[in-house]
C-alpha cells in the first residue's frame, strides 16, 4: 500500500516538473527586421512608412486588448485598420476589461504570441507601469500638443470624453440640469455608474464630477463621495453595472459616464442602442480624462503595434474618435490644417474651452480617499 502511494506521488511530481519546465520556454526574435522594429522609435528608423507597413504585414497579426466595439468607435476603428491593411488580422482580447487587466495580461503572457501589442491605458495605471511601454513617435508627433505627450515618447494622449449624464427620456421627462436633480424622487432606484469607483476609472470619474459639481475641487473629492452617500440614502443609487444592453432594455435609465459612451448607447447605437437615451453635459465645471496610447515593450508584433499607432493618429481615425463624441488629441492641429470633419464637429459640438483633468497626484490622492471612504458611504 505504501509503495503504491509513493509511486503515485512520484508520478505526480514528475508530471508537475515536466509541465512546469515546458512552460518556461521563451521565444526569440526570428529575424533582424523584427529586432529593429522592437527598438524603432519612429517609422523613419525602419526606413519609412512603406517599410513599416511591409514589416507589419509580414507579422500578419496585431493583438489589441480591452477595446469594446461601442467605446469611442473602436468597432469601426478596428475594422478600418483591417480594411486598410488586409494582410493584418486584429485579435481583440477581453473587450470589457480594465486598464489593470491590460497590464496583467502583458505581464502574464510575456514572451507569448498572444500578449497585447498596444495599450489604451488610464493615467494612474500607466504611471505605475512605465517599464512596460516602449518609446515611439508617430509621424505627426508635432500635431499632439506638448502637454499631451511624454517627452520621452513612452505615452501620448489619444482621446477624452466629458463626464456626462445619460438618461432615458421616456422615463425621465425633464432633463437633469444639475447633480442635485438626481436626488429627486423621479430618479428612485435609477442612477447607475460604471462599476465600483475603487476599481474602475470611469466610475471614479463619476464621483469626481459629483465633487466638482458640488463645490469640491480636484484636490479634494470628498464632496463627490458625500453626494453618492446622499444618492444612496435617497434610494436613487442603482448598484448594477450598466451596459449597452441594460440601457436598451430600460433596466438602467440613468447612467453617469463618458459622453462618448452615453452617445454610443443612444440613437447612435442604431438597433442595439436606445433611441430615447439622451446625453447631458452639465453646465459648470466639466470633467475630462485623456486615455493614453502606448506600445508594449514585449509586443509580439512590434511593427504592427507601431503601424497601429500611426493609424490611430491619422486624421481619418481621429475623426472617428470625434464622431463618437470623444475629443481626439490632435483636434486643434486638425482644425488648423482643415483635416477635421466639419459636419462631425458641428454635430458633436466644439471641444470645451476648459475642462478639469485630474493630475497624476490628484488622481492618487482621490483614489486613496475612495479607498478609505467609498464603501462606507454607500454601505
Amino acid at each position, binding site marked *: 500500500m505504501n509503495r503504491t502511494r509513493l509511486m503515485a506521488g512520484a508520478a*505526480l511530481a514528475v508530471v508537475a516538473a515536466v509541465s512546469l519546465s515546458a512552460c518556461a520556454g521563451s521565444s526569440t526574435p526570428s529575424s533582424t527586421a523584427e529586432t529593429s522594429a522592437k527598438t524603432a522609435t519612429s517609422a523613419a528608423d525602419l526606413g519609412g512608412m512603406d517599410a513599416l507597413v511591409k514589416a507589419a504585414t509580414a507579422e500578419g497579426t496585431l493583438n489589441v486588448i480591452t477595446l469594446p466595439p461601442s467605446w469611442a468607435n473602436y468597432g469601426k476603428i478596428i475594422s478600418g485598420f483591417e480594411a486598410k491593411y488586409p494582410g493584418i488580422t486584429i485579435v481583440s482580447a477581453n473587450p470589457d*476589461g480594465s486598464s489593470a487587466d491590460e497590464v496583467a495580461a502583458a505581464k502574464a503572457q510575456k514572451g507569448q504570441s498572444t500578449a497585447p501589442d498596444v495599450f489604451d491605458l488610464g493615467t494612474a495605471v500607466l504611471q505605475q507601469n512605465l517599464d512596460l511601454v516602449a518609446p515611439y513617435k508617430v509621424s505627426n508627433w508635432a500635431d499632439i500638443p506638448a502637454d499631451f505627450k511624454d517627452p520621452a515618447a513612452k505615452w501620448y494622449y489619444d482621446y477624452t470624453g466629458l463626464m456626462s449624464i445619460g438618461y432615458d427620456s421616456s422615463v425621465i421627462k425633464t432633463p437633469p440640469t444639475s447633480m442635485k436633480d438626481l436626488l429627486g424622487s423621479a430618479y428612485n432606484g*435609477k442612477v447607475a455608474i460604471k462599476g465600483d469607483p475603487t476599481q474602475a476609472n470611469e466610475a*471614479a470619474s463619476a464621483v469626481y464630477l459629483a465633487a466638482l459639481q458640488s463645490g469640491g475641487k480636484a484636490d479634494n473629492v470628498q464632496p463627490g463621495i458625500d453626494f453618492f452617500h446622499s444618492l444612496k440614502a435617497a*434610494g436613487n443609487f442603482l*448598484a*448594477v453595472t450598466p451596459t449597452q444592453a441594460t440601457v436598451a432594455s430600460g433596466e438602467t435609465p440613468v447612467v453617469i459616464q463618458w459622453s462618448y459612451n452615453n452617445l454610443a448607447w443612444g440613437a447612435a447605437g442604431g438597433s442595439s442602442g436606445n433611441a430615447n437615451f439622451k446625453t447631458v453635459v452639465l453646465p459648470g465645471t466639466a470633467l475630462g480624462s485623456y486615455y493614453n496610447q502606448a506600445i508594449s515593450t514585449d509586443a509580439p508584433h512590434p511593427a504592427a503595434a507601431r503601424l497601429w499607432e500611426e493609424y490611430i493618429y491619422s486624421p481619418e481615425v481621429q475623426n472617428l474618435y470625434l464622431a463618437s463624441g470623444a475629443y481626439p488629441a490632435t483636434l486643434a492641429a486638425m482644425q488648423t490644417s482643415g483635416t477635421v470633419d466639419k459636419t462631425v464637429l458641428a454635430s458633436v459640438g466644439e471641444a470645451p474651452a476648459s475642462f478639469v483633468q485630474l493630475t497624476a497626484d490628484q488622481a492618487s490622492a482621490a483614489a486613496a480617499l475612495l479607498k478609505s471612504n467609498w464603501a462606507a458611504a454607500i454601505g
Partner: protein
Amino acid sequence: MTAIVAAPPVPVDSISDAGVLPRRRCAAWLGLVPFSAYVVLFLAIPAVLAVASGFFDSTGDFTLANFAAYTNPTILGNFFSSLWLSALTAVVGAILGALICYAMLGTRAETGLRRTVDSASSVLAQFGGVMLAFAFIATIGTQGVLTKWLVSIGFTTNIFNNFNNNGPLLYQIPGLVIPYLYFQVPLMVLTFMPAVEGLKSTWAEANATLGGTRFTYWTRIGAPILAPAFFGSLILLFANSFSSYATAAALISQGGIIPLAIRQQLTSETIVGVANVAGVLALGMVVVMIVLMSAYSVLQRRASRWRR
C-alpha cells in the same frame, strides 16, 4: 446515539486486492496519471500561486502587510455578507431539496417523473453566472416580467423595484438569495437523493411489525440514517454559494461579497498596486473551505458507515 457498533466486516475490495499482482497495480496507478496531471496543472498549482501571491508586495518582496486587509471593516463586512448569504442559501436550499427528495420517494425509481427531475437537477445545478443573472433580470429586474405585472395590477412600488428603499431587490446582497437558490435546490436534490433512495423498505416493514408509527419510523430510523448525508450536502451547498462569483458579478457592481472584493483588488485601475491583497482574501476563503471540507469528509465517513 450510543449504539453498540459491531466490528465492521472486512471490505470486499481489500480481500481481492491482496491477490492482484504488483505489476497490475502499477498499471492502475499509471492510468491515474493523466487525471492527476490535470488536477495538478489546473487546480493545485494555480491555487498555490494565487494564495502565495498574498505574501508578496507589488515589487515582489516578501511581506505580511497584505494581512492588514483583515483589519479593514469593509473587507470584514464582505466576509460577513458572504458567510450569511452562503449559510442562508445552503440551509433553505437543503430543506427545499430534501422536501423534493421526500416527495420523490412516493414515485418508483424507473418512472419518467423521477428521471425528469434527476436530469433537470443535473442541468439546473450547473446553471449559473451571466445566463442565470440575465434570466432573473428579465424576470424580477426593474423591467422584469414579474415586476411589470405587479406594477400593472396596482403595486407601483413593490419588493422587486424598491426593496428597503434602496432600489431593485435583485441588485442588492439580499437579492442574491433568489438566483442562488435556483442552483442550490437542484444541487441538493442531486446529492441527497441517493441517500434517500438507500432507505430500505424492509426497515419500514420492521418498524411497522414492531408496532411503530410513520412518525417513529422517521424519527428513530429515517432521520438518524439520513442525518450525515444531509449535513454533508448542506456543507457542499455552503461551499457552492460561498465560491460563486459570476452570478453576483453580473448583478452587483459595488463589492459586497468576498469574490467581488477579490475582483476589485485584482483589476482596480484607480487604486494601483493592491493586486496582491487578493491573494490574502483568497487565503481567507481557502481557510473557510478547508474547515468545511474537513467537516464534510468526516461526515462522509460517518454517512457511509451504515451501508456496510
